[in-house]
């Protein structure tokens, strides 16, 4: 049985909705630069950028970078205070 990450006890993940495609993912940030993103299947299906990038068949799923729309949505959530950051 895999245990849960001890760091989640201090700060759990927060749902963030992408402003572009409305995919919802769970996000955790320990600092402005650090970001953890947990996708589920519905979110991955909803992401337009992902579909376009992987649809061409040249990119492997694990090489697809964080989509720009989601990155921006997370940044905005942090700036607006909806998304907590472990340390300021």
């Amino acid at each position: 049985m895999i245990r849960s990450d001890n760091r989640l006890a201090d700060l759990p993940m927060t749902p963030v909705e992408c402003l572009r495609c409305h995919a919802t993912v769970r996000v955790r940030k320990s600092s402005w630069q650090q970001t953890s993103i947990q996708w589920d299947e519905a979110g991955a299906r909803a992401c337009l950028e992902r579909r376009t990038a992987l649809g061409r068949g040249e990119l492997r799923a694990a090489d697809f970078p964080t989509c720009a729309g989601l990155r921006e949505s997370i940044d905005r959530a942090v700036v607006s205070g909806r998304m907590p950051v472990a340390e300021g």
Partner: protein
Amino acid sequence: MTMTTGSEVRAIEAAAAPKRFARGWHCLGLADRFRDGKPHPVRAFGQKLVVFQSGDGRLNVLDAYCRHMGGDLSQGTVKGDEIACPFHDWRWGGDGRCKQIPYARRVPLRARTAAWPTLDQDGMLFVWNDPEGNPPREQETPPRIEGALDDGWTDWIWYETTVESNVREVIDNVADMAHFFYVHFNFPTYFKNIFEGHVAAQHMNGKAREDTRPHVEGTPRYLGNTSVAAYYGPSFMTDELTYKYEDMDIRTTLINCHYPIDESSFVLQYGIIVRKQAGLDEEAAMEVATTQAEYVKRGFEQDVEIWKNKARIDNPLLCEEDGPVYQLRRWYEQFYVDVADIRPEMVERFEYELDTTKPNEIWQKQVEENLAAQAAAADRAPVA
């Protein structure tokens, strides 16, 4: 003086390593090694296997023990398309069926042994291990390696070593940024993991460390490297590794792969190819490959030194500057359960970008201190 006891102390918890072996493709080594017309014994997955090339050129993998009276087929002889047992000359085909018993009128019913699906690709031999006995999963076919068996690249330089640890220790490295500085004397400046499906990727950039790999006067200055590495399944990692020098970039592909001998030991293998280019002819590229392979070899020796002394730990205590060790292990778990029991969270996409600000600040200071100490020691050293 007070003793810390009871609830103040964090206990290391660890269940025994699984008895089951991971489902997936495992590389047994360079395919050419097995093409000498002789049977080869391989201890893997808690068993003994025999690898042989049949007359039709195919590489086959069978359970090493003959179903007749238990003779060791790896001590036998290849005869045509079959492996002949040294005990009574029973002939076994690569499909696991007994084809012939020279001294008998007919082969008994159900004369079938365990045959392992094989894949001969890019100069490497793979076997599919599956505790459920299913055929290989199509989406998990190992990726083609750019440059393998290509004239524009060097041949494989390949090493193999046996490690007396459970294989999970090597997997953990995928998410472990800080050990690259402390164990391998690298200097990671960027680090990101992406786990999705059966792939676990690690994107890492690093810069040169003058204290551990000083620049040699008259040679091009090494600046750093970029690395895109990914495990495809439980045991086969490719790493597109570019070394950046002031005058050129050198592109290499590194393979890191392993197969379990049993639950407490595994065979670790690594191979490297280097792209030839302007300013890097055949001989020079081969020299780079040999040199880099030596670094990789030393790197794994540094890991092994840690592994053989460390405790197995299921509840690592992580700080915010560590990578996603738990999520990596959750991904890895998919290969140890039946396909029907793979839970969504084992395969759903997970991204983790590390903040290297604090580690880099501390490491830079450490490098400068090391350099100052080296300079001071050089000043003190008597002139020969």
